[in-house]
């Protein structure tokens, strides 16, 4: 395949439970600008997939249109990818998930893709509880079309050309909470140690998992006056927690003092360990999460970390009562009722 890089593996590279190395989760060479935050997110996704022993071909990665939406080409090359149309990834992902509930679904989107043209689809996929991890690579601008403000740009923030954004921003985290996402987090492309575990936990969560990942655009939104630049985000980041994701049945060695951490068991038996570093935040309380976000925001802080988690959540398939076998795997015998049933229907129509 054209996007596969030649693989020269060092024999000493660490392998995961599948015997794969981190390089087995690589994709094509990125064509994004050097230093683009999106590339750091791709690296974090690669790391996360490697660490949770995800068989690469069991990942389905879907995106819309934009620099961010190009990134699925740059990670996990052995999985199927789908660049759909601008803002419409959520519906395509929903359909894909309906067809085969056994794959792991990763939706990658931009803030333009999600908060402008795709706002409706984003909210609806979340409210349906589609089992996915939806990542917004949020840079506050339209990167691919060269620097227009996106709907997440803060009011008063400045564009590279000096224009001031006069519109109020849409906070996609608040929206995801409001719409009923059962896993809501915010990360920062410049903080990989926080982001990787978030992605791991999001991929493992059953239900609609959402990560808003601040991802500065070095070409159009990394200057003074921008509230999505590396420096600005670093200075205003209020990390809520750090987390670890432990696989099922793995020995959990506690290296934290009691009272500073909280365990949450996910559907597949793995454990999310939350280490509090910021304020005490009840991660299972949606209303508290919304209030906390608003409070910190009023203080000019950007809250990062796992903001809300409902470990009991279920997904669209549960709501629709579909069979365990992926619908895509059902054959003629399962689906076609046959001529006898049709004859009975004919009889009822006479």
């Amino acid at each position, binding site marked *: *395949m*054209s*996007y596969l890089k030649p693989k020269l593996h060092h024999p000493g590279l660490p392998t995961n439970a599948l015997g794969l190395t981190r390089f087995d989760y690589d994709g094509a060479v990125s064509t994004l600008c050097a230093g683009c935050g999106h590339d750091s997110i791709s690296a974090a996704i690669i790391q996360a997939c490697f660490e949770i022993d995800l*068989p*690469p*071909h*069991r990942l*389905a990665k*879907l995106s819309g249109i934009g620099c961010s939406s190009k990134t*699925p*080409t740059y990670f996990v*090359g*052995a*999985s*199927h*990818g*789908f*660049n*759909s*149309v601008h803002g*419409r990834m*959520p*519906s*395509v*992902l*929903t*359909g*894909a*998930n*309906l*067809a*085969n509930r*056994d*794959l792991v679904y990763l939706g990658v989107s931009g803030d333009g893709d999600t908060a402008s043209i795709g706002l*409706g*689809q984003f909210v609806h996929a979340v409210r349906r509880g589609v089992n996915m991890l939806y990542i917004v690579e949020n840079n506050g601008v339209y990167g691919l079309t060269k620097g227009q403000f996106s709907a997440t740009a803060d009011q008063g923030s400045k564009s590279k050309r000096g224009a001031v954004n006069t519109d109020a921003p849409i906070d996609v985290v608040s929206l995801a909470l409001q719409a009923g996402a059962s896993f809501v987090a915010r990360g920062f492309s410049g903080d990989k140690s926080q982001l990787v575990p978030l992605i791991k936990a999001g991929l493992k969560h059953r239900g609609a998992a959402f990560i808003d990942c601040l991802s500065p655009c070095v070409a159009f939104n990394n200057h003074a006056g921008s509230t999505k630049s590396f420096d600005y985000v670093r200075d205003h980041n209020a990390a809520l927690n750090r987390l670890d994701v432990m696989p099922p049945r793995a020995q959990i060695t506690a290296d934290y003092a009691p009272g500073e951490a909280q365990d949450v068991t996910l559907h597949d038996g793995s454990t999310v360990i939350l280490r509090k570093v910021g304020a005490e935040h009840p991660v299972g309380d949606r209303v508290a999460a919304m209030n906390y976000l608003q409070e910190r925001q009023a203080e000019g802080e950007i809250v990062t970390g796992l903001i809300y988690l409902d470990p009991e959540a279920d997904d669209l398939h549960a709501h*629709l*009562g*579909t*069979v*365990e076998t*992926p*619908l*895509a*795997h*059902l*054959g*003629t015998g*399962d689906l*076609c*009722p*046959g*001529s006898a*049933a*049709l*004859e009975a*229907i*004919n009889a009822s*129509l*006479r």
Partner: protein
Amino acid sequence: MSQELTRINDFVVKFANVNGSGSASANQLFARSILGMGVPISTRNIFPSNIQGLPTWYEVRVSEAGYLGRRGGVDLMVAMNPQTWDKDVASIDPGGYLLHDSTKPLPPSKFREDITVLGVPLTEIANRAFADPKQRQLFKNIIYLGVLSALLDIERGVIEDLIGKQYKGKDKLIAPNIQALDLGRAYALEHLDCPIGLRVRRADAVGDRIFVEGNDATALGCVYGGATVAAWYPITPSTSVAEAFAKHCNRLRKDKETGRNRFAIVQAEDELAAIGMVIGATWNGARAFTATSGPGISLMQEFLGLAYFAEIPAVIVDVQRGGPSTGMPTRTQQSDLLACAYASHGDTKHVLLIPEDPRECFEFAARALDLADRLQTPVFLMSDLDIGMNHWLCEPLSWDDTRTLDRGKVLTFEELEAGTPFGRYRDVDGDAIPYRVYPGTHPKRGAFFTRGTSKNADAGYSEEGSDYVANVDRLLRKFETARTLVPAPVIRQAARPTRIGAIFYGSTAPAMGEALDVLEAAGIHMDTMRVRAFPFHEDAFRFIAEHDTVFVVEQNRDAQLRTLLVNQGNIDPKRLIPVLHYDGTPITARFIAGEISHRLAASGDVARKELAS
């Protein structure tokens, strides 16, 4: 007064009602009672796009000869709507009949000399018999049904049976319905000259045919065709496709042991999401469809281009209505042909299947799912409101149990494991259809990237002009392959050799059949071709070449099928004479026969040629 019409088993009754007055059930009972006497009928609902208050009509064509289209004209008008009185009375053929509620007398100016007026004090009878105001309104309808049964000589027992069937399980509703029926019958038998010249006589002309709505049959076709994912957004007249799909799936597609569903139906947030879900589902190996109408098709354009270019199967049921824009949402047309055939920006061409009746809706829906998988492309089922939302008498639905779902060219784990070479957009077999692999199939082989952007034959992103051209040219060749797979046109030779031909499609079929007989009786013989798909079969162009005069009959203003024929067959537009009907009501035999004979008379040249042949 002109001669009263006398016709047995061959007439048109029209009911003029007010939407929301509960007349639908009585009118349907009337239609079914004639069917119950073994006489074929066809019915047409003409209704407004609101819920209450506006006028609605229900037309019943009674035809032992089996004409199932609209004839045109009215022999007996049941005028229950004061608002449309003048228009309704005017529409009665000379010698016809007018049945009305005579509770409040009307001035003579409100009537016509050349028709028979049958007044029955329906309100008065209903008010005397029933106390509850809602019942009074509802049973007024059953009372006129009773009157009609006496006037037209319909067997009371047949109606009684139908009422029994209809209210099975709600038995206490049976008695008052029968009471209302008999009140009407008794009044008519006592006060009117029963039966009138129009009569129903028991016959054996229905056979084992079924009486079914097109949308219901389409939904069943989707069940039989193996669709597991349906995503839709409500829009008249397509909504009942999704609703019927849910109904049939709940009955036929539950896992017996677990009670879980072998289907997923999502009411999407809009048509963009609906088609997006379909595309996601088919990309991932399920069979999926959406049902919509013109405005929904407009919204889906961007995604349809993606599905075409990225070669993803999708079935779109378009139940056409009157456009453009919101147009006439509850009236019928065939005006989405061009929008669907060339949907989306850039160079696109899509496969259309065009059913003539519910039976073909069933067949073509299942076939569309096969074809979409086989061709890896969107396939449109071009139904319309007339077929979709009316009950049609048609041959029973049939299914061959040896038939399996044609999933097209999909490489399996075993094939990939065995080293079968794979390049997503390579034309391996020379039919321009590439192979695909469902996501998640093989750990090492077969993964590819799906995108709406230009790519090379291995699905790698490519902005090379040569890659682009090779790809879009292959898509054109794939369309040629489609031509060999879609249903061929149905060509009928006239009883005598003729140089006149007529092309038509879809719901125009039954009216066309009757128009041909009318024309033939007048000495005009025509060969006909019913087009059933786009791309057009080569026979379609041969048909045009073999006739000097070719009429193209369709239900839209711009002669859309004609445009497609001209475009695709490089045909001189002058060779194709449009016959167009687009007021939103289903086309009638009278209209078609009238237009064609008029045009032929106007060009005496052509008529002479025909007569000479």
